[in-house]
């Protein structure tokens, strides 16, 4: 078999990069037909590498470039991107911006049209592609009306249609719900099994990397490890050190047994076999303790802050997004709102600060009906951090950004200073006051966005997808920050797709599906109902599935270790 990708001494430095190189001395060969997953923390150079593969670097993105990239023998430096596109298809993380046609069929036809395929051939390919990406019956839909998972599948389909021999996807599942993620990986697996397609996926979901033939770990512009996924993923220490989420099952077994790393089980099913063969047991007494701690926490909640009664919302275009929701949020709670893309969860939380008003039913915040109040008033009590920090950052300095909210509310200069200091301290960004917020990393910008909400000292903080686009280490930092805010007395309402985040941090869970709350209760009770969750396109983390198989519901590796007897 020939080489699909051959990279020699590749080094690249962006034009405006301050120090070091984005990638340095990369040497990499990928055989035809291989399925490769590339992982690594933010700033490791994964996307830079992907953009080198089809020549976007150096043709489109400028900088210092040395070394060479051969794709099916073609040097990317010598051909324009549009020519390389016939050999290698690139799917981007931001699926909203890469779909631009009026309907699904035309979106898929765009690539083949450019490559001058006959109309009949294009017609045939549209049919094939729609089948592969499971979008049959959606031919005439406008892409913006599709759900997140469908959009990303369409983005993949639009690249597949030109039948490139290599496909590279740059974090294709970041914004997707768990089942949407699985859908993408199922497609990837099928494509791979079908034939000679070479597949390169950049990903940070460890659980999905198991499907690959080969796993490459990158760090600081270098290739750190390259080999068999099972072998690398069981190296719990390495994962922990460089900040990739370790698989929970091998992590657990590495703590409770003296198994060699190659003997560690990877999946919940394999874990169960191992658990029994090692004669481990669940400590019932400890489990009862954990349950009692939950109950204790629930007893300490304060007054009701937000009350939602029979809430319905119909948008001006006639679409009913909420169909009768009832919820009560008390002071000190940490509530996670789950649901697949398009289930209505964002519509729901936008009612909590008055951005949207009920078309039927009632939302009472701090004792006042939101219909009789204003966003400005409710804003003192409820802060709302939007999903994308770039949708709210505008100031020249971090200080000005965070001071915006107290300033607009007319506080004195000293009061503003005090609040900014307090907010930046809470998000661990002291000393950044004079920095330009746009020059910070995504994780830091996310923190500034939270700080700029905190400076209004709201009792309730709503966070829409606070961990999206962050790597594992940054996700951990963000969640630890939110946990501390919660412990200081802030009530947290969080929308998220990241299931391990919910399982380890949230006290309560509300699952929204098709405009209704279908599951609502403590995280432990909800995560016990794995099958019902699956029906709403949600999947519990490995450790929870594993404990459920043992008849108990444990939410983190630490809890699982605490409840293990017979070590």
């Amino acid at each position: 078999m020939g080489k699909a990708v051959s990279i020699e001494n590749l080094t690249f430095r962006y034009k405006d990069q301050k120090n070091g190189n984005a990638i340095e001395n990369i040497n990499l060969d990928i055989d035809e037909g291989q399925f490769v997953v590339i992982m690594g923390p933010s700033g490791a150079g994964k996307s830079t590498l992907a953009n080198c593969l089809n020549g976007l670097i150096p043709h489109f993105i400028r900088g210092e470039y040395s070394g060479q990239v051969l794709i099916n023998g073609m040097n990317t430096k010598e051909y324009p991107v549009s020519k390389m596109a016939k050999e290698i298809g690139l799917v981007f993380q931001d699926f909203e911006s890469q779909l631009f046609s009026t309907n699904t069929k035309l979106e898929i036809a765009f690539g083949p049209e450019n490559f001058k395929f006959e109309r009949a051939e294009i017609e045939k390919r549209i049919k094939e592609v729609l089948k592969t990406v499971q979008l049959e019956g959606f031919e005439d839909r406008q892409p913006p009306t599709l759900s997140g998972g469908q959009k990303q599948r369409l983005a993949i389909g639009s690249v597949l249609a030109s039948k490139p021999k290599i496909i590279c996807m740059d974090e294709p599942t970041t914004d997707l719900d768990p089942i949407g993620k699985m859908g993408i990986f199922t497609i990837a697996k099928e494509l791979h099994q079908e034939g000679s397609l070479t597949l390169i996926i950049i990903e940070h979901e460890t659980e999905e990397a198991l499907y690959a033939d080969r796993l490459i770990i990158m760090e600081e512009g270098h290739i750190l490890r390259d080999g068999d996924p099972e072998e690398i993923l069981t190296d719990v220490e390495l994962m922990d050190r460089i900040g990739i989420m370790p698989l929970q099952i091998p992590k657990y077994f590495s703590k409770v047994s003296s198994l060699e790393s190659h003997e560690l089980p990877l999946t919940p099913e394999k874990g169960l076999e191992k658990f029994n063969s090692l004669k481990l047991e669940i400590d019932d007494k400890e489990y009862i303790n954990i349950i009692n701690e939950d109950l204790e926490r629930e007893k300490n909640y304060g007054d009701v802050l937000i009350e939602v009664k029979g809430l319905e919302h119909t948008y001006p275009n006639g679409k009913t997004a909420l169909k009768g929701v009832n919820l009560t949020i008390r002071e000190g709670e940490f509530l996670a709102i789950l649901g697949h893309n398009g289930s209505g969860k964002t519509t729901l939380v936008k009612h909590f600060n008055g951005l949207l008003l009920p078309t039927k039913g009632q939302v009472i915040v701090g004792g006042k009906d939101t219909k009789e109040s204003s966003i400005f008033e409710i804003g003192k009590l409820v802060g709302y951090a939007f999903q994308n920090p770039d949708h709210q950052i505008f100031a020249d300095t971090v200080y000005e950004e965070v001071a915006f909210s107290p300033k607009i509310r007319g506080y004195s200069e000293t009061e503003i200073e005090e609040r900014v200091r307090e907010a930046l301290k809470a998000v661990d960004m002291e000393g950044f006051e004079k920095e330009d917020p746009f020059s910070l990393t995504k994780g830091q910008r996310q923190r500034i966005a939270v700080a700029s909400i905190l400076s209004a000292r709201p009792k309730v903080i709503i966070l829409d997808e606070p961990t999206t686009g962050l790597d594992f280490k940054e996700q951990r930092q963000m969640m630890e920050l939110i946990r501390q805010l919660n412990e200081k007395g802030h009530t947290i309402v969080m929308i998220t797709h990241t299931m391990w985040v919910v399982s380890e941090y949230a006290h309560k869970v509300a699952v929204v599906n098709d405009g209704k709350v279908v599951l609502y209760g403590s995280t432990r009770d909800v995560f016990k109902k794995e099958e019902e969750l699956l029906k709403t396109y949600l999947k519990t983390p490995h450790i929870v599935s594993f404990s459920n198989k043992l008849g108990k519901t444990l939410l983190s590796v630490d809890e699982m270790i605490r409840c293990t007897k017979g070590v």
Partner: protein
Amino acid sequence: MDMFLYIDKDTFLHRLDPRTKLAVMFGSFVIALLFESLPILLALAVIILLYGHSGKVLSNLKRIRVILFMIGLMSIVIWSITRGGETKLLGPITLEGIIYGITVGIKFNVMIISGMIFLSSTTIEGISLGLVKLKVPYRGAFAFSTAIRLVPMIVATSYTITQAQRSRGLDLDSGSFIQRIKKYVPLIIPTFVSVIRSTNVFSMALESKGFGYDKERTYYMELSFRSVDYVILIITLLLILVSIYAKITFKL
């Protein structure tokens, strides 16, 4: 928030060739610009509205109703004061001024509505393919259709950003004129940043899908110039010719 102006329906209007619809739009522009007579412009407005109604796309006018209303109002206010005339009503306001204001308001609104009907009943691909068939180079046609696509995208982004800033306490409804303008800074900067970022991804995605692979390309979409297109085209041409003739001979 709907991203596109295009309303996907299967009507007589939607089935017309984009070139025909383009001709109707330009025809309406020409006629509207030629005349300053209220009855003629009213007649033109009725024809255009009926034309739009045949494609069931007039619901899109709701989205621009504020703009249409403001143009009408501003025109009436300005011209009724400044136009002058015989029949004085109150101060500088004259009857002729009011009528002229209404006429000019209708003139501009008819053009906007006509443009809106075109965009609501023609797909972006249809527009660019129509232009290509009219010998506009593909890159140019694509750039034009992309510009149309960009407008609703910017609107959707600024809508999200407005919500984010209002959640932080931004109050756009109070303060003096200058104060209010200053308040738009937190909206404009993030909108620019977001639009620039997504257009950047958009152009990378285009290249990655082979845009510009060759000077030639094939088109999956097919345009068919049917007899009904000829009929509409001839009617439009006749109306334009009659209008020009009328303008010259009767000095309307």
